[in-house]
């Protein structure tokens, strides 16, 4: 027997999770299907983690509209969902006359979009804001900020789950059929689902899912960007993201502080066909470092701790021109809401996009409120962020808070154990990492990974051969040494 839902969301990235959370305000039976073992495994967890001001998008587009809306409400969202967020502000730095003109134009566009507080600042003011930057002048966007992209995605999904949404991981959709006038049949690698509505939030897979639904004509361009992560040691040198002067399609190689205190450098933008390959090349690392060094000369190889890459699903028309977000309920394919081309600023725009999905649904259905809906979600209390008194109290209540497991990020056993028993039931090693920051530090798990593997074994009563690193079949161990 298949499970029947009112709404089935494909994709548990930040968009799918935000849609799930917003729809969970209503009395609906909802599920989310995700092909990966966790949320934020693709584009949502592989980006610059910047909350954008909304000045870099054409006037009147959904990108501009959703971005400004999302940016301005983010303090409230961060508080409601207990997500680490800082309104750092951001500068776009220039030095030539052309740059100056471009920035002026950017300000005009930004203002038309509703972006707040944009101003052109001179060198003195720039150096006051970011003393370590190289440039003659800049555009300052005071409302831009940085967020923990993993925590944000996790928080949205956890809140949705708490409000009644079912999450199914490792459920890749292989086909979709119209079963009856009322129901779709969704076939996954782990069984069938029936649903009245389908919401396509599949990101890099959105065109594929559109095709399965019978919506044709979209063309994705996967724009891949590589990043370098720098040691926290130099984090204090960069109080806010520093970007070059953008074009309308590309933000340029920038340097950004992360919410955890590191600095990230990137991305380049190369069109790729393989949306599963996240390898980084030596050539690109050198290219990124050289480019960003011209903006911010504190990029040294001795501070590299990791690199990563992400792929943005850009919707390109037949001429290869970049198009706006698609958020549609196509008449010819009823009972579908189709999202395509949700690339940057998708992270900032996730909840505004989700509300537009709800509105589309409201055009077709009368929605009744979910009386038990609770918009609040609490994250794991981080020992390292507390003062002495709170630390003492945490340990007194739960001695696991006195056991440091990850030395670089100061993560305790209590946090690891809570992460292992997370509401979404994710038990990969990378899942623990996203939820706690363990293994994200400069030793990259050299000290704590084996301890975490052991705690997973103990807490979930698992065999070593069943411990998964991140993706499906990424088993970490082949067995025991001795019986």
């Amino acid at each position: 027997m298949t499970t029947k839902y009112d709404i089935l969301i494909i994709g548990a990235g930040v968009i799918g999770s935000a849609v799930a959370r917003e729809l969970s305000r209503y009395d609906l039976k909802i599920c989310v299907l995700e092909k990966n073992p966790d949320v934020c495994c693709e584009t949502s967890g592989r980006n610059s983690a910047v909350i954008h001001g909304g000045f870099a998008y054409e006037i009147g587009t959904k990108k501009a509209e959703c971005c400004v809306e999302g940016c301005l409400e983010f303090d409230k969202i961060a508080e409601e969902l207990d997500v680490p967020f800082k309104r750092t502000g951001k500068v776009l730095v220039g030095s030539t006359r052309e740059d100056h003109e471009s920035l002026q134009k950017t300000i005009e566009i930004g203002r038309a979009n509703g972006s707040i507080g944009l101003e052109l600042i001179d060198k003195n003011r720039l150096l006051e804001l970011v003393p370590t930057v190289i440039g003659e002048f800049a555009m300052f966007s005071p409302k831009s900020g940085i967020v923990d992209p993993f925590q944000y995605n996790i928080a949205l999904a956890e809140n949705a789950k708490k409000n009644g949404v079912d999450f199914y991981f490792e459920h890749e959709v292989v086909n979709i059929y119209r079963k009856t006038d009322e129901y779709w049949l969704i076939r996954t690698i782990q069984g069938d689902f029936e649903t009245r509505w389908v919401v396509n939030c599949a990101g890099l897979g959105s065109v594929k899912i559109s095709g399965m639904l019978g919506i044709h004509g979209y063309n994705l361009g996967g724009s891949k960007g590589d990043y370098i992560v720098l040691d926290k040691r130099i984090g204090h040198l960069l109080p806010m993201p520093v970007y070059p002067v953008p074009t309308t399609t590309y933000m340029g190689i920038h340097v950004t502080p992360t919410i955890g205190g590191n600095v990230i450098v990137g991305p380049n933008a190369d069109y790729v066909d393989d949306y599963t390959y996240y390898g980084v090349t030596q050539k690109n690392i050198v290219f990124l470092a050289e480019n960003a060094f011209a903006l911010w000369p504190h990029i040294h190889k001795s501070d590299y701790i990791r690199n990563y890459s992400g792929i943005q699903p850009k919707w390109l028309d037949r001429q290869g021109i970049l198009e706006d977000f698609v958020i549609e309920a196509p008449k010819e394919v009823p009972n579908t809401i189709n999202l395509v081309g949700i690339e940057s600023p998708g992270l900032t725009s996730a909840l505004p996009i989700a509300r537009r999905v709800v509105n589309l649904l409201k055009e077709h259905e009368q929605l009744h409120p979910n009386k038990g809906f609770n918009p609040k979600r609490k994250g794991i209390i981080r020992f390292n962020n507390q003062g002495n008194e709170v630390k003492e109290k945490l340990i007194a209540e739960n001695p696991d808070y006195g056991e440091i497991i990850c030395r670089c990020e100061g993560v305790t056993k209590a946090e690891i154990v809570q992460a292992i028993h997370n509401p979404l039931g994710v038990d990969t090693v990378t899942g623990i990492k996203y939820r706690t920051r363990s293994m994200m530090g400069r030793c990259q798990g050299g000290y704590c990974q084996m301890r975490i593997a052991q705690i997973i074994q103990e807490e979930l009563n698992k065999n070593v051969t069943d411990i998964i690193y991140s993706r499906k079949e990424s088993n970490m161990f082949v067995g025991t040494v001795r019986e």
Partner: protein
Amino acid sequence: MNLINKDVVIIGGGPAGLAAAVLLYKNGIKDILIIEREKTLGGILRQCIHDGFGLTRFKEQLSGPEYAQRFIDQVEELNISYQIDTTVLNITDDKMIQAVNRNGLFNYKAKAIILAMGCRERTRGALTIPGERPAGIMTAGVAQSYINLHNIMVGKDVIILGSGDIGLIMARRFTLEGAKVKGVFEILPYPSGLTRNIEQCLNDYNIPLYLSHTITNIHGNARITGVTVSKVDENLKPIPGTEKLYTCDTLILSVGLIPENELSLDAGVKLDNRTRGPVVDGNYQTSVEGIFAAGNVLHVHDLVDFVSIEAERLAYSVTEYIKNNSLPKCEIIINTSKDINYTVPQYIDKTKDFTLSFRVKRPFKNCRILVKQGELVIKIAAYKKVIPAEMINILINHKSLQSDKDLEVSIEC
């Protein structure tokens, strides 16, 4: 919160911390505390179950745990206090120490702090090895811990990048446990590990060592499936056209160790860019008065015996510091010529004999190490062969120091 006063707090219960503690106690400094984050004392030696330890310090072959036990037994006999399962959160320049364990937070005020935190392994990210990031890639020490302490087999079909000693030891360990080690790839034209390990861990088991080779790509998006290896030119750049694919299920990295000085930096201790450990004087005192350092936190050693011996030399200085409340100022700088990588100490005074520890930057044969003060040669040591893998120790008699001029260490063939 209670503040507990101590004469000496030792951070780290590995070989350096243990040796320092035992000798301090024997010297009459008994109000000491060792803080160790693991469940038992011994440090990294606990996972080094192979032999070869102790030839210099004890004149016999011991395994790592046996070597550590020699010191742990003395700590127990002398009733030296230690706290295990306890992590130091921070230290300050006025020698306050905050530590945490399951019982809560602890605050200590010490007359002297000994930094003995050891080192950590350089990672893939630090080297920016390109390619995918699947499971099955780990540093040699992590693999050693999984296999020797956690009874977990990490893989069966192994490639090792880097010829550091732990990587060589692990090549043998994997082979003994039935895994196939396909090769050790070293970017430099000479091995990074000790000659005896090349012989005993690779040659004895027919494991090939490829010098002037490096990994230029990693394959597999779930578990690692293989690596691309390339030859490198004299500038260590991969040579196009030399790529060769090796399949594997495990990649072990043995690409260097980094002294672990996060706590030292908290206290304002100045580090040496070459060693990545504190700058110390002839008393092993760092740039912060009353904070001392020895062992791998100071500079990465080749043999644990030298760690213990260095920590014992440090213990004499700390004894003097506690008894006199100060130490003579060290203002003579030790410089290095271009083929010498670094020296420890970096500063001395002329009232005390001292041991000069250093490494060369590349291998030399039939050479002489010269220590000069100004134009005056104060020490000559002749060697048939010196290699970067081996630390060189030379004892300098203070009577040979004739002036307050800087010293220079150089090598000539």
